[in-house]
Protein backbone atom coordinates (compact mmCIF):
# COMPACT_ATOMS: atom_id res chain seq x y z
CA UNK A 1 0.00 0.00 0.00
CA UNK A 2 1.02 3.57 -0.47
CA UNK A 3 0.44 6.78 1.37
CA UNK A 4 0.80 10.19 -0.12
CA UNK A 5 1.44 12.98 2.37
CA UNK A 6 0.91 16.59 1.31
CA UNK A 7 2.73 19.11 3.46
CA UNK A 8 1.90 22.81 3.13
CA UNK A 9 2.89 25.89 5.07
CA UNK A 10 -0.04 26.94 7.23
CA UNK A 11 -2.18 29.83 6.16
CA UNK A 12 -0.72 33.01 7.56
CA UNK A 13 2.86 31.72 7.39
CA UNK A 14 4.78 33.67 4.75
CA UNK A 15 5.79 31.50 1.80
CA UNK A 16 8.55 33.46 0.07
CA UNK A 17 9.13 30.71 -2.50
CA UNK A 18 5.47 30.65 -3.51
CA UNK A 19 5.57 34.43 -3.69
CA UNK A 20 8.62 34.31 -5.99
CA UNK A 21 6.84 31.81 -8.26
CA UNK A 22 3.75 34.05 -8.36
CA UNK A 23 5.93 37.00 -9.31
CA UNK A 24 7.68 35.01 -12.05
CA UNK A 25 4.35 33.88 -13.53
CA UNK A 26 3.23 37.51 -13.69
CA UNK A 27 6.50 38.52 -15.34
CA UNK A 28 5.99 35.77 -17.95
CA UNK A 29 2.65 37.26 -18.88
CA UNK A 30 0.31 34.88 -17.06
CA UNK A 31 -2.38 37.16 -15.72
CA UNK A 32 -4.68 36.65 -12.82
CA UNK A 33 -2.50 34.51 -10.54
CA UNK A 34 -3.49 35.98 -7.19
CA UNK A 35 -1.41 33.69 -5.02
CA UNK A 36 0.93 30.71 -5.08
CA UNK A 37 1.68 28.42 -2.16
CA UNK A 38 4.41 25.84 -2.54
CA UNK A 39 4.43 22.64 -0.53
CA UNK A 40 5.78 19.15 -0.83
CA UNK A 41 4.46 15.69 -1.53
CA UNK A 42 5.99 12.70 0.24
CA UNK A 43 5.16 9.22 -1.05
CA UNK A 44 5.49 6.33 1.36
CA UNK A 45 5.69 2.70 0.27
CA UNK A 46 4.15 0.85 3.20
CA UNK A 47 3.62 -2.70 4.37
CA UNK A 48 0.03 -3.84 3.92
CA UNK A 49 -1.98 -3.18 7.03
CA UNK A 50 -0.15 -0.03 8.10
CA UNK A 51 -2.78 2.06 9.82
CA UNK A 52 -3.65 5.63 9.06
CA UNK A 53 -2.81 6.36 12.69
CA UNK A 54 0.76 5.18 12.04
CA UNK A 55 1.07 7.53 9.07
CA UNK A 56 -0.38 10.36 11.14
CA UNK A 57 2.23 9.68 13.82
CA UNK A 58 4.96 9.83 11.15
CA UNK A 59 3.62 13.20 10.04
CA UNK A 60 3.41 14.57 13.56
CA UNK A 61 6.85 13.38 14.59
CA UNK A 62 8.90 13.99 11.46
CA UNK A 63 7.30 14.62 8.08
CA UNK A 64 5.66 17.93 9.01
CA UNK A 65 6.65 20.60 11.50
CA UNK A 66 3.25 21.44 12.88
CA UNK A 67 4.47 24.79 14.17
CA UNK A 68 4.51 26.03 10.58
CA UNK A 69 3.07 23.27 8.40
CA UNK A 70 -0.20 21.42 7.94
CA UNK A 71 -0.50 18.03 6.27
CA UNK A 72 -3.03 15.72 4.70
CA UNK A 73 -2.72 11.97 4.17
CA UNK A 74 -4.08 9.97 1.23
CA UNK A 75 -3.95 6.19 1.50
CA UNK A 76 -4.22 3.95 -1.57
Amino acid sequence: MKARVHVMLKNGVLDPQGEAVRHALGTMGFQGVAGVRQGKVIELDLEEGTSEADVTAMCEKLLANTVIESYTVELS
Partner: protein
Amino acid sequence: MRAAVVVFPGSNCDRDLAVAFREAGAEVTMVWHKETTLPDGVDIVGVPGGFSYGDYLRCGAIAAQSPICQAVKAHADRGGYAIGVCNGFQVLTETGILPGALLRNAGLKYICKVVDLKVETSSSAFTSAYNAGDVIGIPIAHHDGNFYADDATRAELRDSDRIAFTYADNPNGSVDDIAGILSENRRVLGMMPHPERAADAGHGGTDGVAMFRGLMGALTPA
Protein backbone atom coordinates in the same frame (compact mmCIF):
# COMPACT_ATOMS: atom_id res chain seq x y z
CA MET B 1 33.16 24.70 32.82
CA ARG B 2 32.80 21.49 30.81
CA ALA B 3 31.32 21.88 27.35
CA ALA B 4 30.25 19.28 24.81
CA VAL B 5 29.89 20.16 21.15
CA VAL B 6 27.65 17.90 19.08
CA VAL B 7 28.88 16.88 15.63
CA PHE B 8 26.38 15.82 12.96
CA PRO B 9 27.25 14.73 9.44
CA GLY B 10 27.26 18.12 7.73
CA SER B 11 28.14 20.25 10.77
CA ASN B 12 30.72 22.84 9.75
CA CYS B 13 30.93 25.24 12.72
CA ASP B 14 31.57 22.58 15.34
CA ARG B 15 35.29 23.26 15.61
CA ASP B 16 34.78 27.04 15.64
CA LEU B 17 32.36 26.66 18.55
CA ALA B 18 34.80 24.36 20.36
CA VAL B 19 37.63 26.89 19.89
CA ALA B 20 35.47 29.71 21.28
CA PHE B 21 34.58 27.61 24.35
CA ARG B 22 38.21 26.58 24.81
CA GLU B 23 39.50 30.14 24.47
CA ALA B 24 37.13 31.14 27.27
CA GLY B 25 38.72 28.45 29.42
CA ALA B 26 36.28 25.56 29.01
CA GLU B 27 37.20 21.91 28.71
CA VAL B 28 35.56 20.75 25.47
CA THR B 29 34.53 17.29 24.28
CA MET B 30 33.22 16.67 20.77
CA VAL B 31 30.24 14.30 20.69
CA TRP B 32 29.28 12.36 17.55
CA HIS B 33 25.57 12.30 16.68
CA LYS B 34 25.31 8.53 17.13
CA GLU B 35 26.23 8.74 20.81
CA THR B 36 23.28 8.19 23.11
CA THR B 37 24.68 9.99 26.13
CA LEU B 38 26.60 13.17 26.85
CA PRO B 39 29.91 12.96 28.67
CA ASP B 40 29.55 12.93 32.48
CA GLY B 41 29.55 16.29 34.17
CA VAL B 42 28.83 18.40 31.09
CA ASP B 43 27.71 21.91 32.03
CA ILE B 44 26.76 23.12 28.58
CA VAL B 45 26.03 21.54 25.21
CA GLY B 46 26.80 23.38 21.99
CA VAL B 47 24.74 22.52 18.92
CA PRO B 48 26.75 23.99 16.06
CA GLY B 49 25.98 25.51 12.71
CA GLY B 50 26.21 23.72 9.39
CA PHE B 51 23.96 21.56 7.28
CA SER B 52 23.16 18.57 9.46
CA TYR B 53 22.07 15.60 7.31
CA GLY B 54 22.18 17.92 4.30
CA ASP B 55 19.20 19.82 5.73
CA TYR B 56 17.02 17.17 4.07
CA LEU B 57 13.27 17.41 4.69
CA ARG B 58 13.62 20.61 6.76
CA CYS B 59 16.67 22.27 8.32
CA GLY B 60 17.45 20.44 11.54
CA ALA B 61 14.55 17.97 11.23
CA ILE B 62 16.57 14.79 10.85
CA ALA B 63 19.20 15.90 13.36
CA ALA B 64 16.45 16.48 15.91
CA GLN B 65 15.63 12.76 15.74
CA SER B 66 19.25 11.61 16.16
CA PRO B 67 20.25 9.64 19.28
CA ILE B 68 22.38 12.47 20.70
CA CYS B 69 19.49 14.93 20.43
CA GLN B 70 17.42 12.78 22.75
CA ALA B 71 20.30 13.13 25.23
CA VAL B 72 20.46 16.89 24.63
CA LYS B 73 16.71 17.13 25.25
CA ALA B 74 17.03 15.14 28.47
CA HIS B 75 19.93 17.42 29.52
CA ALA B 76 17.79 20.52 28.86
CA ASP B 77 14.81 18.96 30.64
CA ARG B 78 17.05 18.42 33.68
CA GLY B 79 17.88 22.12 33.66
CA GLY B 80 21.18 21.81 31.79
CA TYR B 81 22.56 24.63 29.66
CA ALA B 82 22.67 24.52 25.88
CA ILE B 83 23.38 26.87 23.01
CA GLY B 84 22.30 26.30 19.43
CA VAL B 85 23.83 28.49 16.75
CA CYS B 86 22.39 28.76 13.24
CA ASN B 87 21.64 25.17 12.20
CA GLY B 88 21.88 24.41 15.92
CA PHE B 89 19.02 26.87 16.56
CA GLN B 90 16.98 25.10 13.87
CA VAL B 91 17.73 21.77 15.55
CA LEU B 92 16.63 23.09 18.96
CA THR B 93 13.30 24.30 17.56
CA GLU B 94 12.78 20.99 15.74
CA THR B 95 13.33 19.07 18.99
CA GLY B 96 10.82 21.34 20.72
CA ILE B 97 13.42 22.53 23.26
CA LEU B 98 12.82 26.05 21.94
CA PRO B 99 9.55 27.38 20.46
CA GLY B 100 8.98 28.62 16.93
CA ALA B 101 10.56 27.60 13.64
CA LEU B 102 13.01 28.95 11.08
CA LEU B 103 11.66 29.56 7.59
CA ARG B 104 13.36 30.39 4.30
CA ASN B 105 14.70 33.98 4.32
CA ALA B 106 12.02 36.39 3.13
CA GLY B 107 14.30 37.58 0.31
CA LEU B 108 15.04 33.95 -0.67
CA LYS B 109 18.77 34.60 -0.73
CA TYR B 110 21.48 33.05 1.37
CA ILE B 111 22.93 35.92 3.42
CA CYS B 112 26.49 35.99 4.71
CA LYS B 113 27.57 39.23 6.39
CA VAL B 114 28.17 40.90 9.73
CA VAL B 115 24.97 42.37 11.19
CA ASP B 116 24.21 44.59 14.14
CA LEU B 117 22.39 42.81 16.91
CA LYS B 118 20.67 44.50 19.79
CA VAL B 119 21.07 42.76 23.13
CA GLU B 120 17.50 42.64 24.46
CA THR B 121 18.21 41.21 27.88
CA SER B 122 21.27 40.79 30.03
CA SER B 123 19.37 38.45 32.29
CA SER B 124 20.83 35.08 31.24
CA ALA B 125 24.17 33.33 31.56
CA PHE B 126 24.68 33.95 27.84
CA THR B 127 24.10 37.67 27.89
CA SER B 128 25.10 38.69 31.41
CA ALA B 129 28.38 40.18 30.18
CA TYR B 130 26.47 42.56 27.91
CA ASN B 131 24.11 45.37 28.82
CA ALA B 132 20.56 45.38 27.53
CA GLY B 133 20.54 47.82 24.64
CA ASP B 134 24.13 47.11 23.58
CA VAL B 135 24.59 46.80 19.83
CA ILE B 136 27.09 44.15 18.80
CA GLY B 137 28.42 43.09 15.41
CA ILE B 138 28.01 39.35 14.81
CA PRO B 139 28.15 37.47 11.48
CA ILE B 140 25.17 35.68 10.01
CA ALA B 141 25.39 33.00 7.33
CA HIS B 142 22.05 31.39 6.57
CA HIS B 143 19.36 30.69 4.01
CA ASP B 144 16.68 29.69 6.50
CA GLY B 145 16.92 32.14 9.36
CA ASN B 146 13.49 33.71 9.16
CA PHE B 147 12.19 33.14 12.69
CA TYR B 148 8.49 32.43 12.91
CA ALA B 149 6.26 31.97 15.94
CA ASP B 150 2.52 32.45 16.29
CA ASP B 151 1.14 35.53 18.03
CA ALA B 152 0.64 33.82 21.39
CA THR B 153 4.21 32.48 21.43
CA ARG B 154 5.61 35.88 20.45
CA ALA B 155 3.67 37.56 23.23
CA GLU B 156 4.91 34.99 25.71
CA LEU B 157 8.54 35.44 24.58
CA ARG B 158 8.20 39.19 24.89
CA ASP B 159 6.39 39.19 28.23
CA SER B 160 8.83 36.76 29.82
CA ASP B 161 11.89 38.68 28.55
CA ARG B 162 13.05 35.67 26.55
CA ILE B 163 14.07 37.50 23.38
CA ALA B 164 17.85 37.55 23.72
CA PHE B 165 18.82 39.38 20.53
CA THR B 166 17.06 41.30 17.77
CA TYR B 167 18.38 42.51 14.43
CA ALA B 168 18.95 46.25 14.20
CA ASP B 169 18.15 45.96 10.47
CA ASN B 170 16.10 42.81 9.86
CA PRO B 171 17.89 40.86 7.11
CA ASN B 172 15.63 37.82 6.76
CA GLY B 173 12.02 38.64 7.64
CA SER B 174 12.08 37.27 11.20
CA VAL B 175 8.99 38.21 13.21
CA ASP B 176 9.64 41.04 15.66
CA ASP B 177 13.24 41.17 14.28
CA ILE B 178 14.06 38.18 16.50
CA ALA B 179 17.61 36.83 16.12
CA GLY B 180 17.84 34.72 19.28
CA ILE B 181 15.59 33.42 22.05
CA LEU B 182 15.88 31.83 25.47
CA SER B 183 14.09 28.83 26.95
CA GLU B 184 11.63 29.27 29.79
CA ASN B 185 14.33 28.59 32.40
CA ARG B 186 16.73 30.89 30.47
CA ARG B 187 19.32 28.12 30.22
CA VAL B 188 18.95 27.33 26.54
CA LEU B 189 19.78 29.92 23.89
CA GLY B 190 19.09 29.56 20.19
CA MET B 191 20.35 32.18 17.75
CA MET B 192 20.93 32.42 14.02
CA PRO B 193 24.00 34.73 14.20
CA HIS B 194 27.39 33.18 14.95
CA PRO B 195 29.03 34.52 18.15
CA GLU B 196 31.84 31.96 17.67
CA ARG B 197 32.78 33.74 14.45
CA ALA B 198 33.33 37.00 16.33
CA ALA B 199 35.54 35.58 19.05
CA ASP B 200 39.06 36.37 17.88
CA ALA B 201 40.78 39.46 16.50
CA GLY B 202 41.53 37.40 13.39
CA HIS B 203 37.79 37.09 12.75
CA GLY B 204 37.55 40.83 12.24
CA GLY B 205 35.44 41.32 15.36
CA THR B 206 35.36 40.16 18.96
CA ASP B 207 31.86 41.09 20.07
CA GLY B 208 31.02 37.42 20.63
CA VAL B 209 33.76 36.90 23.22
CA ALA B 210 31.66 38.33 26.06
CA MET B 211 29.11 35.56 25.58
CA PHE B 212 31.65 32.80 26.14
CA ARG B 213 33.32 34.68 29.00
CA GLY B 214 29.93 35.32 30.60
CA LEU B 215 29.09 31.62 30.36
CA MET B 216 32.44 30.73 31.86
CA GLY B 217 31.77 33.07 34.75
CA ALA B 218 28.26 31.74 35.33
CA LEU B 219 29.00 28.03 34.93
CA THR B 220 32.36 27.65 36.64
CA PRO B 221 32.05 26.59 40.27
CA ALA B 222 33.62 29.21 42.52
